[in-house]
C-alpha cells in the first residue's frame, strides 16, 4: 500500500514538473513577440528593450523558467503584460467558478447515469432498456451549448423562471442557485448521457461474471446480487471514465460558460489567447495540467481503495 502511494505521488510530481517545462517552452517557440504586442508596432527598439528588461524577458530562457517556476511554487503567477493585473487572484476566482460548475455537473451526471445505466443493462432485452439506450445515444450527439441555448430560450425567455446568464458566488445561496441551475443542467445532461452508456456496458459485462452466479446460488435474486456484488466491481471501469470526463470538462466547460456569460477558467484562457497574454495563458494551462493530473491521481487512489488486488502489501 505504502509503495503504491509513493509510486502514485512520485509520478504525480514528475508529470507536473515535466508539463511545466513543456508549457513554458511551447509558448516561447510560438511566433509573436509579447513586447511588440504590449507596446504596439510603432514602439522603438529602446522602448521594446526597456519593456523586456521590466518583465525579465532579456535573461536566458533557463533563468526565466526557474524564476517563473519559483513564483509558481509560491502561488505567484506574475503580472499580466497586457492588463497589468496580478494573475494569481484572477486565476483563483475563475478556477473556483469552473470547479463549482464541473463538480455539480458531474454530481448530476453520476446521479442520473448510475441508476439509468444499470436499468438499461438489466432490461437490455426489453423496451424500457432500449428506450434509455436510445435517449442516451441522442444525448451523446447533442452538444452542450445547444442544450444551454434551448434551456435559455425555454426557462429564461419563455417562462422567465431563471436568469439567462451571469454569475453570483455561493456566498449568496439563493441567487447562486438561480444562476447555476441552467448551466449545470446543460453540462450535466450531456455528461450523464455519455456516462449512462459506459455504466450500461460495464454492468452488462459484470452480469456475465461467475461470481454473480455464485451470489445467486447463495440465494440472492438476480437484481440484489447485481447491486450487492456487481456494482462495486462495475464501478472500477466507470470511475476511469468519470475522471476523463472531469478533466475534459475543465476546459470543455468554456462553451457553456460563453453561452451563459460565466467568468470561468476556460473563458479566461480563450480571452488571454486572443490578447496574446503570454503569462496568463501559461498560468491557466499549468493550472489545468495540475488539475487534470490531480484528478488522475485521485482516480488511481480510489482504485487502490476499491480494489484489494491493487494493494498487494496491505
Amino acid at each position, binding site marked *: 500500500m505504502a509503495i503504491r502511494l509513493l509510486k502514485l505521488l512520485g509520478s504525480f510530481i514528475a508529470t507536473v514538473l515535466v508539463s511545466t517545462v513543456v508549457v513554458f517552452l511551447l509558448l516561447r517557440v510560438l511566433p509573436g513577440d509579447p513586447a511588440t504586442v504590449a507596446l504596439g508596432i510603432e514602439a522603438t527598439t529602446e522602448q521594446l528593450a526597456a519593456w523586456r528588461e521590466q518583465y525579465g524577458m532579456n535573461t536566458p530562457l533557463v533563468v526565466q523558467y526557474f524564476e517563473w517556476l519559483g513564483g509558481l511554487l509560491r502561488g505567484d503567477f506574475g503580472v499580466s503584460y497586457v492588463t497589468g493585473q496580478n494573475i494569481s487572484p484572477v486565476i483563483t476566482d475563475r478556477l473556483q467558478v469552473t470547479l463549482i460548475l464541473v463538480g455539480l455537473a458531474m454530481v448530476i451526471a453520476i446521479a442520473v447515469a448510475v441508476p439509468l445505466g444499470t436499468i438499461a443493462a438489466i432490461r437490455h432485452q426489453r423496451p424500457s432498456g432500449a428506450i434509455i439506450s436510445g435517449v442516451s445515444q441522442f444525448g451523446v450527439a447533442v452538444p452542450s451549448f445547444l442544450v444551454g441555448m434551448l434551456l435559455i430560450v425555454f426557462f429564461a425567455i419563455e417562462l422567465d423562471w431563471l436568469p439567462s446568464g451571469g454569475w453570483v458566488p455561493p456566498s449568496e445561496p439563493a441567487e447562486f442557485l438561480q444562476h447555476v441551475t441552467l448551466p449545470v443542467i446543460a453540462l450535466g445532461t450531456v455528461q450523464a448521457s455519455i456516462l449512462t452508456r459506459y455504466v450500461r456496458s460495464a454492468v452488462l459485462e459484470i452480469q456475465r461474471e461467475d461470481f454473480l452466479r455464485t451470489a445467486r446460488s447463495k*440465494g440472492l435474486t438476480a437484481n440484489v446480487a447485481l447491486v450487492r456484488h456487481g456494482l462495486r*466491481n462495475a464501478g472500477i471501469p466507470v470511475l476511469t471514465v468519470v475522471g476523463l470526463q472531469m478533466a475534459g470538462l475543465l476546459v470543455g466547460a468554456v462553451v457553456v460558460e460563453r453561452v451563459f456569460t460565466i467568468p470561468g477558467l476556460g473563458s479566461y484562457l480563450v480571452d488571454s489567447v486572443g490578447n496574446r497574454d503570454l503569462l496568463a495563458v501559461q498560468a491557466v494551462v499549468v493550472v489545468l495540467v495540475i488539475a487534470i493530473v490531480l484528478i488522475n491521481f485521485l482516480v488511481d487512489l480510489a482504485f487502490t481503495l476499491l480494489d484489494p*488486488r491493487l494493494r498487494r502489501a496491505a
Partner: protein
Amino acid sequence: MTSTAHPLANRIPVADHPALDVSGLTVATDEHELVSNLTFRIERGERVGLIGESGSGKSVTSLAVMGLLPDSLTATGRVTVGGDDRNVIGLGEAQAAKLRGANMAMVFQEPMTALNPLLRVGRQIAESMLIHGTQPDRAAAERRAVELMTDVGLPTPAETARAYPHQLSGGQRQRVVLAIALANDPELLVCDEPTTALDVTVQKQVLKLVLETVSRRSTGLLFITHDLAVVGETCERVLVMNKGVVVEEGPIDRVFTRPQHPYTRGLLAASDLDATDTAGRLFTVATAADYVLGRSVLRTAQRPSAPAAPAAPAAPTSAALVRAEQLTKQYRRDRTSLRTPAPTVDALRGVSFEIEAGQRFGIVGESGSGKSTLLRILSGLDQPTSGTIDVVGRRLNGARHADLAELRKNLQIVFQDPMASLDPRMRIGEIIAEPLMNAANLQGGIAVSRKERAALVAEMVHAVGLPTDSVERFPHQFSGGQRQRISIARALVCRPRILVADEPVSALDVSVRAQVLNLLADLVDEYELTLVFVSHDLGVVRHLCDRVAVMQRGEIVEQGETRAIYDDPSHPYTRSLIEATPTIRHTQEQE
C-alpha cells in the same frame, strides 16, 4: 463437526423425500431442445454422476435444477428439491432464490472467478447464512464461517477468512466455494465440473473432501463432469447424457464394466488411454466396438514404428536435437514493501535434459512447476537467466532476432486453447498459409508462389483430416477438435523438425481428445517429427511419449523412459502424481 441445523439428519439413512426429483425436464432455446424429457431422482445421501461431453446438456440441467437458467432458455417439467414440494421450474426469481443456498447449493467449475474479488472470503461465506437467516447477526455468521472453513480443510481459517480471493490458490478458493455451498446444510449439492480447473493432486483432495462432506451430512450429490474417471471415484450411480437425452443410467460398476449403449461404450473406450486397437491407436467413439473393457495394452510397448529409443544410450550426445544444461529463470516481482527488496521468483532452478531426433518427449507438471517457462525458453519466446539451451545445433540464449528465425523454421508450436489461438477474422487457408509468408520459415529459404502455397495448405488440410473446402471458412465455423487440427496444420505447413505441443488436448472432449492424439501420433511418424509434449495429464503423456520429465517447483525431479517411470517411480512427487490421477481402470478393476 457439529451439525446444528438438523441434529437428526445424519441418523436417518432414508428420509421420506428424495434430495432431488426431476421429471420430464425439457430445456429449449427458440430453435431446438438442449435437454429432452429428463427424469431422475437422487435420494438423500446418494451420489449421482451426470456424464456428458460439451453440448450434451449437462450444465444446462444443473442450472435448471438451481433455478439459474438464463432468460433466453425456456424450461418445462418438474424439479423439486428436498422436502419442499414447490416446482423450481417456473417458480419465479424471488421464490427460487429462497431455495437456492438453503435447500440446494452449487459448486462451480472455475474457482478463480467464482468469488467476488473485492470482498473478504469470510464475509462471502457469512453472507450465505445472513441471506437465509440461519445465523442471527453478522458476527455470529462470521464465526460460523470460520468453523466451516475448518471443516473444508483450509489452513489457519481465522486468518484465511480475512483474505481476499486473489490471495488464495485455486484449490483453496474451491474450498471456500464449497464452504459457501455447505453453509446452510443443503439437502442437495450440485457440483459442475468442480475439479476440472485444478491440478491432479489438488483434485484428489477436493474430491475426497466433497465425498466426506456429503456422506457425513447425508447430502444428495449431483456431480456433473466430462471426466469418467472422476465420476468413477466419486459417485455410486451415473447418468450418461448425449445431445440432451440420458442414453444410459445405472450403478457405476455396472455401467463402467457392462455398458449397454454404444455411446457409453465409446466414451469409456476413448477415456481409456491404456487401451489401443491392433494398429496401436486409441479408440474413438467410432471404433469403440472393438474395445475390450479392462484389458490393459500399453501403447509404448508395441508401437510399430518405435524409433531407436532403446539404442539411444549408445550415442547419447550426437543425436541430441535439443540440449538444455542447467537452465535457470528468475522473475522479479514488484516491490511490495519499503523495507524488503523486490522478491524474486525462481521459475526454473537448474533444468537439464536432452531430446534426441525422433523422440517423443513428455514434460509433466502441475501449475507453477515451470513447464510453461521452459516451453517459452525452448521456443525462443523468452531468455533463460543462466544455463544454455541448444536447438538443432543453435544456441538460443543470447540469440538475436535473426537467429531465432532459424529456430522457428525448425520448431513450431501447437497451443492449448484452440478457441483463442486462431484469429477469428482470418480464413482457415490464410491461417495455415501464414507461416509460409515468412521466407526464413521455409527449409529452402525461398518464399513459395501463391499457387505452391495453396498446394501446401491443401496438403496439410488433407493430412489433418479436414474437408478440402475448410480453407474458405472461418474459425468460428469449426468445433474445438477441428480447430486444434487447424493449429496442427499451421504448425506443420513449413515442415519443422520439432513440434512442441502445449497441452493440446486439455480443452477437448474425451472422444475428440482420442482423435487428436491419434492424429498427432500419425503425423509424428509420417513427417518424422520430434515431439515435445507438455501436459498436466499423466495418462496422455504415458500414451504418447517415449521419455518423460516430471517437473516440480522449477526442477525436473525425475526423467527417463516413460514406462519405467510409470511402473516404478523413484521420486515421491512422481508417485503422488500417479496415485492422484483417477483412471476408469481403477473403477473397472474393483468390480
